[in-house]
């Protein structure tokens, strides 16, 4: 037998066997945990897929097709002014790093061919934390304030960490010869303003479809809440007009989908989700039957959906099994979590940021896991610490970074990330 090839399936099968052999069947905790996994998955399916994940995939797909990555990278070249390079490096993660596997080549390229160590580490840190899908899901599931804190924390600390890295290793930096950057890419058919308006209409749909019910029953926020579907429809009409005017979509196609969607409102006036699905299905058919970049948009959105949805599904199941829904217990007792990461002490923040730094989170799975942890008593400060150190680093990630930067720089970077994440967790935990 060729053990070199066979040991992986062997340990996989043996591992699954051992799990089921020692499964404590019949115990209340296990049965509750299994139910929790199913309930949590069902809650995600009902609350987050149709109006949150699906539009988010369309936005992510649009970003990867319609925003030229090369046009962003050109601001990270060796001749760019320092301040611009740092700010672009911090922000561009929202556009470039929708998939975690794209972060490392970009990081290596910025370091070796472009703006150097500072902006490269700024990008490496901020990229995974500020990508659109991550921010949208964090704000939706874990609350708006944590979503904003995550974005703001990642952006500001990325610049600080980049600056410190550059300062510590400034001697080695100046010796490095600047290699050539890849050629900038082709131009877009639309102006920047037209593209911006197109993204704006989709972001409006996403924001207002997800508008939560406010606590008070009158006033401005309640007015927004009661008219959320009207605003969403207006944004959808705007998107339709933009598609006809600038994306060469035939007007009668949009008109048919619009009419169909309006009809669905008349048929089921109390079921906005049904209407939302009708409109989305129409958009998919329009994109699939067109041959230009709109088809590419659909393909890329589907690419994200296909890549991320299964991971998220497993992540939700695992989080439900181990941690349960908020207010319920899974396999892991709440008391353990409270003693490790409860409250806002220095030790719980530090623990959260160290664990986050070494553990690997597949794209977006940090959200259900954190939701489970917070439901079991994790403090808000440690939660932010985990969000800030988690997606940016993992053990496999560190090994790749080491092959690019060398051991010393990688060690300093990891140390900086862990300390920064813990400190921002403590600060955030003190305020909220």
């Amino acid at each position, binding site marked *: 037998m060729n053990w070199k090839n066979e040991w992986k399936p062997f340990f996989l099968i043996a591992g699954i066997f051992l799990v089921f052999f020692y499964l404590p069947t019949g115990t209340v905790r296990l049965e509750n945990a299994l139910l929790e996994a199913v309930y949590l998955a069902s809650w995600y399916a009902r609350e987050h897929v149709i109006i949150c994940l699906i539009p988010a995939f369309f936005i992510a797909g649009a970003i990867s097709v319609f925003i030229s*990555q*090369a046009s962003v*990278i050109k601001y990270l070249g060796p001749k760019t002014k320092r301040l611009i390079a740092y700010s672009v490096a911090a922000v561009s993660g929202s556009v*470039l790093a929708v*998939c975690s*596997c*794209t972060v*490392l*080549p*970009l990081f*290596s*390229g*910025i370091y*070796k*061919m472009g703006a150097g160590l500072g902006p490269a580490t700024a990008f490496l840190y901020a990229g995974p934390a500020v990508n659109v899908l991550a921010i949208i899901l964090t704000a939706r599931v874990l609350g708006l304030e944590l979503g904003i804190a995550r974005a703001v924390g990642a952006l500001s600390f990325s610049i600080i960490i980049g600056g410190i890295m550059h300062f510590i290793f400034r001697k080695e930096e100046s010796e490095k010869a600047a*290699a*050539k*950057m*890849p050629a900038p890419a082709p131009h877009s058919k639309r102006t920047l303003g037209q593209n911006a308006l197109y993204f704006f209409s989709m972001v409006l749909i996403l924001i207002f479809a997800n508008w939560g019910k406010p606590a008070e029953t009158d006033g401005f926020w309640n007015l927004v809440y009661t008219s959320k579907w009207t605003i969403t429809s207006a944004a959808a009409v705007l998107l339709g007009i933009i598609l006809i005017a600038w994306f060469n979509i035939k007007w009668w196609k949009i008109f048919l989908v619009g009419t169909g969607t309006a009809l669905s409102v008349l048929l089921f006036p109390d079921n906005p989700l049904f209407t939302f699905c009708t409109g989305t299905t129409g958009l998919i058919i329009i994109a699939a039957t067109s041959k230009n970049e709109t088809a590419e948009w659909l393909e890329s959105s589907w*690419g994200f959906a296909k*890549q991320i949805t299964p991971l998220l599904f497993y992540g939700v199941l695992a989080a439900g099994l181990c941690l349960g829904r908020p207010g319920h217990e899974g396999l892991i007792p709440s008391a353990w979590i409270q003693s490790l990461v409860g409250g806002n002490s220095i030790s719980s923040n530090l623990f959260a940021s160290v664990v986050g730094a070494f553990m690997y989170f597949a794209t977006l799975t940090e959200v259900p896991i954190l939701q489970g942890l917070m439901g079991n008593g994790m403090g808000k400060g440690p939660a932010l610490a985990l969000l800030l150190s988690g997606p940016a680093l993992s053990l496999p990630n560190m090994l*790749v970074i080491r*092959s*690019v930067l060398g051991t010393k720089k990688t060690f300093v970077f990891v140390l900086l990330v862990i300390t920064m994440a813990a400190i921002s967790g403590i600060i955030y935990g003190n305020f909220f």
Partner: protein
Amino acid sequence: MKIEILGTGCPKCSRLFENAKQAVLESNLEAEVLKVQDINEITNFGVMIIPALAVNGEVKSTGKLLSSDEIKKLLT
């Protein structure tokens, strides 16, 4: 002819690798298809967005999952 697929092992990279093999098979070309997975080698190609495809050491496409038909056009 040497075709290199640059990528760190993401799903898109392995699909591009399959498509390239398919394209070589269908167009009856003498060509070997290789994977380049080391990040420093990828950077030496001047590539920052993966997956990328290089023919005889020259980068032809970056950041796109080309279909086998598109690759055939690049090869001929």
